[in-house]
């Protein structure tokens, strides 16, 4: 890589940029890159406004005049435009930018509403909630999630959820009517500075949450009162500083309540995804009627047992199978993995398959994966992990166990009683 280093040594900032950097100040309004596209942005905004008005008259009504992007960039609150809740007419909002979708050779621009987030100041309140008695529940597939939100193209083009690993569940009342759905999306490393979100929709009410934050800001976006809050904090990964930026909105429209919470190392990205979600849902809503309750099981299988009530289960009092030892989700990382059939985690609401572990201590809503110490790849419980899959090259002095696929250095004892599988096996090769 000597040539690469030589080349890069010759790359230096221009005098113009150097001067610009030296003169930077911390302004109330940041000179974001949009500024250089000022004229173009103004013209684009005008075109977008017209286009958007055609595709979305409801939101187009609230657009700022065409010069807005010239004055304020993304992530740039202009408090003067904050609209008091309850005003008769929606006041114009500054835009948070736009995005384009091209279909069949036609490109349409969509304008994003700017959202003002109240600062929670780090305070929070823990709440308990549960699905109603008699409700049935099932996991959602990727197709279900796409159907609920309006299709695969909506996920990719409008919500920008492409690349996120999606999971979730939906619940229905005993009479079969839709109660609500919770969807999680994770991009990248779940234990680190991953981008992740939770989207929830419930019929007729705001989705219940287990943590409430004071200090939310309310605003009127296209006639919908949107409550928004933010939290920013620093954490450390491998002793390196990592900033996490969480943005959250909740609102009620067209008979459904919504909550969307996005966490990212990049606050602009977090806000863009929230704005996209708000725009999409206010514009098009969701389609719970496209979800079938077929295959859903009682959310509280112990209902009807006189020894138990509805709510958080007490495994010492009314567990269907008394031979099954009590399952404490907070000990899930420690075998035995003995979740009873139909168990729903009281902390995160996840339905846990029988006999599997669940990382409830983190409330991440998905089972603990195993992480290969050599390549860092995550793989599920009981599955063999092969380095052919992850592509990490094996060092010459490394053996691969032909039973489980695990790679181990020469001379190291390898036992199949390791956490990632439980076969009674010991390879003499290692």
């Amino acid at each position: 890589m000597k040539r690469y280093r030589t080349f890069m040594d010759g790359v230096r900032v221009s005098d113009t940029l150097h001067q610009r950097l030296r003169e930077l100040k911390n302004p109330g309004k940041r000179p974001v890159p949009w500024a250089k596209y000022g004229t173009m942005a103004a013209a684009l905004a005008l075109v977008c406004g017209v286009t958007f008005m055609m595709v979305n008259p409801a939101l187009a009504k609230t657009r700022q005049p065409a010069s807005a992007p010239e004055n304020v960039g993304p992530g740039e609150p202009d408090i003067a435009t904050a609209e008091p809740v309850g005003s008769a007419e929606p006041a114009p909002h500054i835009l948070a930018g736009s995005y384009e979708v091209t279909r069949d050779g036609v490109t349409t621009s969509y304008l994003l509403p700017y959202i003002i987030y109240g600062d929670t100041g780090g305070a929070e309140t823990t709440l308990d909630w549960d699905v109603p008695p008699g409700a049935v529940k099932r996991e959602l597939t990727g197709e279900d999630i796409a159907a609920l939100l309006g299709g695969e193209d909506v996920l990719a083009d409008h919500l920008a959820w492409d690349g996120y690993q999606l999971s979730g569940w939906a619940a229905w009342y005993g009479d079969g009517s839709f109660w609500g759905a919770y969807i999680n999306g994770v991009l990248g490393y779940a234990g680190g500075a991953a981008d992740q979100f939770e989207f929830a929709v419930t019929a007729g009410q705001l989705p219940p949450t287990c943590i409430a934050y004071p200090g939310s800001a309310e605003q009127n976006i296209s006639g919908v009162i949107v409550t928004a809050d933010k939290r920013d904090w620093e954490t450390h990964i491998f002793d390196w500083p990592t900033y996490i930026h969480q943005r959250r909105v909740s609102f009620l429209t067209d008979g459904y309540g919504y909550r969307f919470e996005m966490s990212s190392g990049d606050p602009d990205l977090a806000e863009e995804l929230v704005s996209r979600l708000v725009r999409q849902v206010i514009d098009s809503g969701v389609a719970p009627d496209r979800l079938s309750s077929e295959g859903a099981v009682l959310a509280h299988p112990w209902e009807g047992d006189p020894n138990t009530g509805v709510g958080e289960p007490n495994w010492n009092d009314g567990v269907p199978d008394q031979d099954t030892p009590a399952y404490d989700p907070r000990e899930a990382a420690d075998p035995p993995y003995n979740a009873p059939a139909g168990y729903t985690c009281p902390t995160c609401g996840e339905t846990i398959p029988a006999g599997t572990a669940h990382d409830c201590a983190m409330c991440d809503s998905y089972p603990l994966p195993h992480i290969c110490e050599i390549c860092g790849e995550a793989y599920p419980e009981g599955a063999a992990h092969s380095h052919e899959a992850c592509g990490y090259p094996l060092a010459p002095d490394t053996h691969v166990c032909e039973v489980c696929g695990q790679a181990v250095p020469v001379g190291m004892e390898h036992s199949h009683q390791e956490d990632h599988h439980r076969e009674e096996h010991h390879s003499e090769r290692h």
Partner: protein
Amino acid sequence: MNHSNRLEELVGKYENTLFRASLAILGDVQEAEDAVQETFLRYLEKRPEFRDGGHEKAWLLKVAANRCKSVLRGWKRHPAVELLDIYPAPDDGGSRELLEAILALPANQRAAVHLHYYEGYTSEEIGAILGQRPGTVRSHLSRARDALRRYLSEEEGE
């Protein structure tokens, strides 16, 4: 030291580091300049306290990398202006091909290659900067090495 002097010190120290990293990830001079400017603006907004020089540099690189990721996310196509037209490769019979091969790598691999081979970071450190698992970084480096093997073997032979 007041903030103005502090900024000037940081600009003098890291402007080229941030610009090279941004350029390596984005391959676009204009966008890389914007990423550098945004990084220093973020510094002015946050005014973080740094433990030491390593922490300071890593923080700035992390912010720049995040900015680059945002830019990449919004791109529909690659930049029209070729980087090597602006910064010509040395005419030594091989550099241009190597650089073209590096620039043809996916952005996450280019980022890992630059931070590892140019800045000298370990995969753990790169993982912290890019918000990825160290194993993922190693995987990116491995795939990049596979793609660049011909050039690397030539260099090793020199």
